[in-house]
């Protein structure tokens, strides 16, 4: 059952008078009406104001709505949103200025149920020729471990693909683990990488048990590139998202296309991971599946609507899986909201304060919604109006440590992105400069291994006018892991991998 709290949309309580409702709606119209605010999020937000107003401004409809409203004893959201501003007060300037907002989402402890939602998981394994040997062996070990890890009520299916795709284990509850493992063991490496067929067959396995009671998820494990069907794969991801199925990806080795895998997974709110040799695939997969099992809400979505005069420049999810989020199309898929880990998103806004009055300034509205898993299934929605203060005085407030921390990690990822972009644009001097900056910053942060990798890439660019596949991925996923404070885990994995074949 989903019940929308229209009062909270308008920022009011059920005690609100007719004139309160009218003025709240008028205020919203000034901020978000499509005539004044062209941002994609504003459109959605204003639609919700319209829906709320349509009911609450009509006495008959409001009366009916209030009857329903009173029946629900607890409307307080189970997800708590905490917002930090890089500067909660800013000085009015005759030029544009940046403002960062960090939103942290966490389910309230008392709302987390003990039993986790069952998984409906499909693992799609690349068994192309290049997987031969240790890679496929490690993937098999990882799959065996997952089969042992899963609860009796979870559903698993396994699909493999090379020239075409085949079902290794059809979707079923965890009854006959021994037989499942034997089937996994029988996988042989051969042929090419027909990823589309694999994904398509995998998603159809998930479909068999798909329901809102499950965490419906597909994990793609690959070491190669798929040719000519990347766009078709992306189409499958969009489709999966519509049906509430998350996709995450694990790339082994150097040859897979990380930008494609990022695009594919982020469309569903998932993320990609980099495993340099395959040795650590078990650990990665184990952690990933464990996280799926602690999901509080699935299919969560984010809408962000900046007020007129405020421009949204960038959205980055920094936890649990760091990823750049594209915001041209809203709502934005956020994926799973974990009950064991914080979900955190950083927004970068550009504000024009030239003609703004002193006092409170409405930056925009954030809205997060998701399907809460468990017995009392419902759609949950939280709205947060972002408000800062505009002053005429110099502001010397310290930015909150949460923001400093997040941005100091993000800048490393950013430098790595800059370098890559410079190489793509053929500006090798700029790329070398960015890589050197990155190395310097990494050294400051005590990340010697990654710093060395950055310096190595700087030399590579100078000599070959290209980045190495290996270095590109090591830097990207290395700096990404730093964002998520999984430093320890990642560096451990790197050292373990160093001793691997």
């Amino acid at each position: 059952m989903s019940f929308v709290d229209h009062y909270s949309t308008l920022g009011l309580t059920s005690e609100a008078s007719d004139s309160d409702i009218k003025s709240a709606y008028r205020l919203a119209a000034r901020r978000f009406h499509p005539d004044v605010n062209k941002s994609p999020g504003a459109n959605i937000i204003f639609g919700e104001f319209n829906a709320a107003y349509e009911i609450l401004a009509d006495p008959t409809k409001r009366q009916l709505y209030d009857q329903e409203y009173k029946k629900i004893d607890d409307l307080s959201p189970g997800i708590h949103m905490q917002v930090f501003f890089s500067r909660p007060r800013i000085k009015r300037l005759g030029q544009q200025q940046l403002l960062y907002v960090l939103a942290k989402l966490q389910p309230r402890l008392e709302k987390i149920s003990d039993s986790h939602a069952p998984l409906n998981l499909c693992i799609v394994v690349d068994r192309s020729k290049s997987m031969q040997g240790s890679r496929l062996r490690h993937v098999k070990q990882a799959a065996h471990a997952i089969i042992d890890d899963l609860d009796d009520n979870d559903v698993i299916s396994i699909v493999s693909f090379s020239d075409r795709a085949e079902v290794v284990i059809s979707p079923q509850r965890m009854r006959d683990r021994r037989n499942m493992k034997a089937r996994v063991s029988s996988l042989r490496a051969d042929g090419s990488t027909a990823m589309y067929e694999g994904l398509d067959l995998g998603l159809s396995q998930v479909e068999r048990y798909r329901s809102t009671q499950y965490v419906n998820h597909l994990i793609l494990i690959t070491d190669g590139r798929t040719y000519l069907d990347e766009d078709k794969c992306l189409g499958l991801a969009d489709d999966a998202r519509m049906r509430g199925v998350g996709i995450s990806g694990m790339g082994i080795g150097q040859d897979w296309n990380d930008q494609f895998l990022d695009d594919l997974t982020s469309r569903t709110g998932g993320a990609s991971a980099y495993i340099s040799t395959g040795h650590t695939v078990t650990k990665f997969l184990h952690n990933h599946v464990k996280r799926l099992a602690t999901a509080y809400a699935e299919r969560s979505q984010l809408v962000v609507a900046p007020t007129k005069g405020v421009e949204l420049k960038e959205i980055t999810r920094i936890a649990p899986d760091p990823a750049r989020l594209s915001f041209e199309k809203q709502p934005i898929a956020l994926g799973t909201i974990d009950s064991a880990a914080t979900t955190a998103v950083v927004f970068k806004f550009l504000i024009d304060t030239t003609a703004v009055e002193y006092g409170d300034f409405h930056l925009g509205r954030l809205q997060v919604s998701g399907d809460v898993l468990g017995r009392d299934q419902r759609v949950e929605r939280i709205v947060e109006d972002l408000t800062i203060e505009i002053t005429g005085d110099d502001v010397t407030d310290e930015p909150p440590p949460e923001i400093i921390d997040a941005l100091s990690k993000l800048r490393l990822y950013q430098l790595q992105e800059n370098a890559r972009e410079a190489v793509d644009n053929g500006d090798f001097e700029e790329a070398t400069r960015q890589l050197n900056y990155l190395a310097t910053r990494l050294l400051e942060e005590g990340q010697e291994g990654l710093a060395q990798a950055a310096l190595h890439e700087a030399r590579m660019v100078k000599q070959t006018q290209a980045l190495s596949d290996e270095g590109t991925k090591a830097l990207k996923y290395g700096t990404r892991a730093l964002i998520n404070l999984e430093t320890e885990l990642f560096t451990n994995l790197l050292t373990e991998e160093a001793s691997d074949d």
Partner: protein
Amino acid sequence: MIECPYCGHRNIEGALFCEACGFSLWDDNQAHSSTRKLDEDSNELSVKSGWGTATFEEGTQIVVHIRDSVKPIVVTPGSEFLIGRKDDASGITPDLDLTEFGALDKGVSRVHSALRRGEDVLSIVDLDSANGTFLNGQRLASHQPRLLRDGDEIRLGKLVMHIYFK
């Protein structure tokens, strides 16, 4: 606009880290304000205990104090001012030759680093030296100019010197 003290990039107001090089602009602000505080408390001590000026105008000289050496060296750097160790075999003669200060033992390269004059600023750049150039304790990435400020400490290999603008 906030000018990055590390790379000179002009950042939009409100940036916490330089958009071009990732340097912490926020820490920098802190450093500035604490310096100012010191000024008020003890007028005399001020400048050298915090960040010195980065302004290096036409005709400014630099005074180089080399550690364990009594006499400072005064030089007027040109647009590119090479620091290193004279080597007759290869015919290299740096503008500032550190041979007499034990450069060889302290790991100074023949072509170690250079000072470069920009518009009203002076920067230092490491030239792929074997043992590195350090500015205020931080190792510089090669070929990556860094702004110099009055009072900065420079270390070439193990040879430490301080630079003052005059």
